[in-house]
């Protein structure tokens, strides 16, 4: 199927670059393409296509995933760039590099992660008595501390933080953190939360009868009590909406979080922890009502 993707030499006003030709990137790209049908011609390509010269009708470039975002910036194709399906920290790094390089190319993003406030709202709705939220911060998440503090203040929660640099510091950090908190919130930082650390982290929280809130469906399968995440289709829809605005106004809207998201819960873990957790649909409805206010 990869052979079917045209090079950047297509005739579209929008070109979508995928980090790789894998199902998840394709879903986002095809969702955007179908949502823009009638509004703009969309080409879907992979990174190597960026080496070709710019097509003359091209108005916006969309990068899906971190690799595509990096490649799109490096390609110096001077049309406004929308990056998506990447976490905010990856975008912030990219934007900072661009500022240093004084690159004038307009840049915006649709983040893959959820705003901190939304996650705090979920915790409050799911566990009305939980007030103390614990986070482990590592190299990739440390810069989120001010945002976490601010959200905690706004939502009247107490934030407890332990900083770790390396796997061996996780266990002692948890030992200090867990007795002080009601829930542990996982943040997308591979130096702290990855496939090999998730086991000791979940076992330690479980032993203290504390729930972990994750940020992907995989976290809920692994044993987190709940997670908020945006699916590839939801990201595609939101990115298409941003592009519609951009096509109409001629410029990209500012970076933002996805307004569409999914809630996944693990009722078995909740039951085992003795936490009376509402059903996904009811909880999601309450969360959306809260967000709309």
């Amino acid at each position, binding site marked *: 199927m990869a052979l079917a993707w045209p090079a950047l030499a297509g005739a579209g006003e929008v070109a979508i670059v995928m*980090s790789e030709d894998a199902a*998840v990137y394709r879903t986002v790209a095809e969702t955007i393409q179908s949502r823009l049908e009638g509004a703009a011609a969309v080409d879907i390509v992979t990174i190597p296509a960026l080496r070709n010269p710019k097509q003359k009708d091209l108005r916006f470039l969309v990068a899906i*995933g*971190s*690799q595509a975002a990096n490649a799109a910036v490096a390609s110096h194709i001077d049309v406004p760039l929308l990056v998506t*399906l*990447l*976490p905010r*920290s*990856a975008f912030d*790094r990219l934007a900072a590099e661009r500022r240093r390089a004084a690159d004038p190319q307009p840049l915006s993003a649709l983040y*893959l*992660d959820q705003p901190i406030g939304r996650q705090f709202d979920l915790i409050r709705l799911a566990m009305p008595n939980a007030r103390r939220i614990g986070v482990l911060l590592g190299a*990739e*998440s440390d810069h989120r501390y001010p945002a976490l503090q601010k959200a905690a203040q706004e939502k009247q929660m107490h934030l407890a933080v332990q900083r770790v640099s*390396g*796997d*061996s510091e996780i*266990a002692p950090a948890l030992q200090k953190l867990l*007795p002080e908190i009601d829930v542990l919130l996982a943040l*997308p*930082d*591979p*130096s702290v*939360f*990855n*496939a*090999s650390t*998730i*086991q*000791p982290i*979940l*076992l*330690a929280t*479980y*032993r203290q009868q504390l729930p972990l809130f994750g*940020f*992907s469906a*995989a*976290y809920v*399968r*692994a*044993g987190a009590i709940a997670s908020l*995440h945006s699916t590839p289709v939801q990201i595609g829809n939101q990115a298409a909406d941003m592009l519609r605005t951009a096509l109409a106004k001629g410029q990209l809207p500012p970076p933002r979080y996805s307004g569409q998201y999914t809630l996944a819960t*693990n009722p*078995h*873990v909740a*039951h*085992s922890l*003795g936490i*009376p957790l509402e059903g996904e649909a009811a909880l999601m409805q309450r969360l959306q009502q809260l967000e709309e206010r």
Partner: protein
Amino acid sequence: MKRNHSRLAGLLPVLSLALFSAPSVAQPSGEASERDFLDELPVVLSASRLVQPLADAPGAVTIIDRDLIKASGAREIVDLFRLVPGFQVGMAYGSAPVVAYHGLADEYSRHMQVLVDGRSVYSPYFLGSITWNNLRLSLDDIERIEVLRGSNSAAYGANAFMGVINIVTRHPSQSQGAYLSATQGNQGIGDQVLRYGGSHGDLHYRITAGRRSDNGFANFHDSRQAGYVAFRGDMRLTAQDELQLQFGANRSSAGAGFAGNSGDPERTLNEKGYFAQAVWRRSFGPDEELMLNAYHMEDEGSENYMVRGSIRNPFPFPPTLLSAVVDADRRTKRTHLELQHIFRLNPAARVVWGFEQRHESVASRLMFDTPEPQTTNLSRLFGNLEWRLAPQWLLNAGAMLEKHSFAGTDLAPRLMLNFQPSPEHTIRAGMSTAYRNPSLAEERAKVRYYITAIPPAPFPPLQLVQTSYNASGGLQPERIRTGELSYLGEFRNLGLTADARAFHENVSRIIDKTGSPANFLNRHRAIVRGLEYQLRWKPTRDTLVLLNHTRTRIASDDDRIAESSPQRATTLFLSQTLPGGWQLSLTHHWIGQMRWLGWSNPLPWHRRMDLRLAYPFRSGPFKGEAAIVTQNLTAPYSEFRTDYIFERRNFATLSLEF
């Protein structure tokens, strides 16, 4: 990302080899990317790892967690069961601990199933018993102990006759780094534990080595020494598959016999053994799991000694001298294979089912009058349905079909209905039937002493044979029919859990020996009735209070059985964290009069008070604790026999972690 590479890993070539061939599920660390959101993660809290809430449990359960283990001041595992309502703990002949629930126990407590990580540690030797001294396990490696009070053969097979003790050890990822602990006390108490936990790719492992020794009771030849080494390695094979390997070995010795008794001379029993276990789990999510559990264990004891006696002859002849060599060496083996499948039938119903195959053998010349190993084969098919009939009603229906090579085939069913009118209150009512299969010795014991008699000259020496046990066989399994009504109150805002169990246990076909030479027969019946409760109150993080009380009445055609449980027993446990981080705990037991069966006699009621004071500290990378424990601050009391006097024991423990 720093990883703990260890030299120990080099000692495990098989594991290392497996590591390199297994695909790694770990992702490279570095900058956050969409992969953090999209990649698969291992299923950590799998169906079998999720602890069932107490309100859903099919019966009364007491959980002993790490905090309680520590605060209790327990030196060995059996000390912990003193904190479980309805339990009796004693130290029998040769410093062998015995644990019973609702009496009916002698020095070979054989009415309880004990599992360590799903491995039965019930010894098939002699009458069958739990060899608590040879568990190859350090207290600090235990994550929690679930004690299911009451018969549970439907889930755990025969031997889970009166209850089940389920010991779950810590996942190695939870005990990384080094740990040292040393205990020294009076009465020869000297225990050491050394542990190292590390990781290597997706393998987490720990290796623990320990020694324990004490002098036993004053004036008895029952000092004991035990050394053990235990390994547990948990390896993630894929996001769904996990392999756990465990190995353990022990070597121990204990004094036996009595000074000045040539018929039961002082001697030393030397034991050694090992086990190997592999558990493979495939999780399809938090509500479906397939588990394959295989283990093999071998234990041997060497106890070879000479007994002497004499027969008086008419004057003026000197007495005839008698002597016999007792070859009490034994060797037991068990191989076990088990497949278990947990799945959800529908949102309201969950099923656990599986089958087990077990082979056991016991070789003992003393017991069977032959060096040939005696074998038992066991096949089991089990299933339990957990069905939420309505939001407030939960039904647990289970049964085990067991085919035993000489006890025949039995079906042990259990039905328990839990009614939870509000989140705080649960009322359970249920009934079950369970069996205990006769042990090899009860079925086949043939104990013959080959005696050499040396009469006075000029008569020549004679060979005599004295038969002391001659089992006729054909025993039926012991049977227990239980009816119970229990209440669980969980008041989270008060930090209070109340658990009360009213029970009616109808035990029949109780196997006992009789006659000379002794034969084992299904002889007695007993009706055990009573009420027990436990209050657990944790008002703050710093305070824990436990109050247990048991009232038991046993009616039996045998007077000793009727006295085999105290009619009343009360335990109060307090634990408090003091300013400065000091931890103080205090336990007080009041145990009514009772008697153990077998080689015992009635014990008067007694009190016992234990005290523990600990100071946890932290200095740089070191974390540690200094603790002093006094067991039995009050007057000396009798533990198993009136002459086994438990005097005050003091010991101090220093532990370091880094």
